[in-house]
């Protein structure tokens, strides 16, 4: 195939981007999550806030992704999944994810990744075992895809911090929004 593999595209995009120290990112994110835990009483609310913050990041970051990854438009949801795993994860987190566990209707898939730069130094305290520490990632994916007219649900199902063997984010496509909302003619 003459077209470069997504892996290559991801690595090239990663090489082009400015980078910050992973420690700065991990520590900043850690402080941020701690503050949310102080501000909200319920861990569920913290999870929701992280998701909402991520969504706000996603709707902005998607422009950065499109501008710098030089990726062509995706022609299927499966293609989108691969692009997220191989290009977007590499570009913004420096790791790649694997796409697995497709549902029968091809609308739901899992992103598996072993290394999570956000949680590099983290151990979950006993009083909040229900925290999805890196839930911001779910929000980012949801927000970014929303800008591309895909309404998705995105949840963490496994997290190494909780003792699971890997990190897993489940992404399911709810609906493809119309390209342009029909506008009243007057």
């Amino acid at each position, binding site marked *: 195939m003459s077209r470069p593999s997504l892996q290559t595209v991801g690595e090239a995009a990663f090489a082009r981007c400015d980078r910050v120290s992973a420690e700065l990112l991990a520590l900043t994110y850690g402080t941020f999550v701690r503050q949310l835990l102080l501000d909200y009483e319920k861990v569920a609310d913290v999870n929701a806030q992280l998701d909402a913050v991520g969504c706000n990041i996603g*709707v902005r970051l998607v*422009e*950065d992704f*499109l501008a*710098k990854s030089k990726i062509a*438009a995706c022609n299927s949801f499966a293609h989108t999944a691969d692009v997220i795993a191989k290009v977007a994860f590499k570009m913004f987190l420096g790791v790649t994810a694997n796409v697995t566990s497709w549902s029968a209707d091809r609308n739901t898939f899992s992103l598996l990744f072993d290394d999570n730069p956000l949680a590099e130094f983290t151990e979950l305290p006993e009083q909040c075992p229900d925290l999805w520490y890196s839930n911001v990632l779910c929000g980012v994916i949801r927000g970014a895809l929303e*800008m591309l007219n895909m309404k998705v649900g995105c949840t963490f199902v496994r997290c190494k911090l909780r003792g699971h063997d890997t990190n897993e984010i489940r992404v399911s496509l709810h609906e493809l929004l119309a*390209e*342009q909302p029909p*506008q009243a003619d007057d």
Partner: protein
Amino acid sequence: MGLQYLFVINKAGSLIFDRRLSENAPQLSPNDCLHLASTFHGMQLLVQQLSPEPSDHGFGIVTLETESYVLQAYRPETGVQFFVTADLKTENLAAFLRDVYVIYADYVMKNPFYELDMPIKVDRWEAHLKRLVDKYNNRVNV
């Protein structure tokens, strides 16, 4: 040969940025700019209905050539749209717009105080845009 105007419109078709890029460009009033942007957006929708499949060059109107100027448009998948008008025979307009998109992603979208879909009033974006335009003009006029 040279750039004339740059316009950015959001996905609803409202003008969020316009800039006269050259002393030689015709003087347009703010109203003219609004008018032009919404006309272009309407045309773009029409063309996209007529031809819904993207071609190798992009989607909808990509280049428009008239007797006195050319117009080049770039529409990323998110729906924001950039278009530039320039003197006839100005080259590399597509590459110029892609560069504009990169600085838009950096200095507009990443500015936490920029409200999405609102008019762009960001100094850093304007400074980088100016630098980009100067660089482009130098390259063209060598």
